[in-house]
């Protein structure tokens, strides 16, 4: 039986962000922007949604007098991502 895919993750930009974060310990906002080629505004909105879902932690700090945003996947985010991939594989019959 097919399970519903997590709507939070089943969107292009949010899934791209989660896929990047699953591979690293933490990443700067600029890194995510560079890799996804998204606009800063759109990326901010999607990061906020992931944060609200508890999938990522967002740390805002200053580096060399400039604001810096660091994103890190949470334990809940890892579990959700793993479940999403498992469900995807079920759909694809892998």
């Amino acid at each position, binding site marked *: 039986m097919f399970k519903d895919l997590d709507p939070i993750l089943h969107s*292009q*930009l949010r899934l791209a962000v989660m896929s*990047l974060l699953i*591979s690293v310990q933490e990443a700067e906002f*600029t890194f995510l922007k560079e890799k996804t080629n998204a606009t800063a505004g759109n990326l901010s909105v999607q990061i906020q949604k992931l944060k609200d879902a508890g999938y990522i932690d967002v740390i805002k700090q200053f580096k060399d007098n400039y604001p810096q945003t660091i994103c890190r996947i949470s334990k809940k985010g890892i579990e959700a991502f793993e479940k999403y991939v498992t469900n995807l594989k079920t759909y694809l019959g892998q």
Partner: protein
Amino acid sequence: MSQENQLTEKESLELITRMINKAKDACHDTGITAIMWGLVIVICSLVRFAELQFEFRLPFDIYMLTYVAVIPQIYFSIREKKRRKVRTYDDRFQDGLWLAFGISIALLIFIVGRLYREWDPVNDQFETLTGTAGFKLYEYIAAFFLMLYAIPTFVTGMTMKFKPMFWGGLLCWICCIASLFLPVKTDMLLIALSAAGAWLIPGIIMERDYQRAKKHLANTDV
């Protein structure tokens, strides 16, 4: 990239794979530090070998170059930290491993200096009294350094799945054993060989991969 695009299951899986590869490609280390330390140790060892072989002495200890090399090392580390937009799980491990190695090498230099000071007068007395050759402590020093060189190099090679360093670490251990049976002069060549095999050559390969990855990333888009 717009978040509004609805993905098919196949597209989702492709996107995940592409992004994971992108993150992986972005995590290439530069080989600058390895090249620098490899070169420094090769130069120091070869100069020391020449001093022993051709019986001359520079007005300063060539190994002082290793202290000077700490300055560019600090510069490279700060520059790297500033440039780094992403931190992987391996980064912290690698930082800790090489820092521990640096501390251990500094301690070994201190211990060896101390040993010489304590041992030399005793050895001289022994030789004077018995007329026989005493224990030649300096014959064994290279082995300790080579043994230490191997540890972080081998571990880095294993954990990062970077074969040149894996083989470089093994080469250091082989040279460590060989140094026990060869004269001090040859030990210097073994140290040079180990530094070239463990750091200089892997550093060049790492830097080449880094430059390639940088160029590749600059040419790709999501």
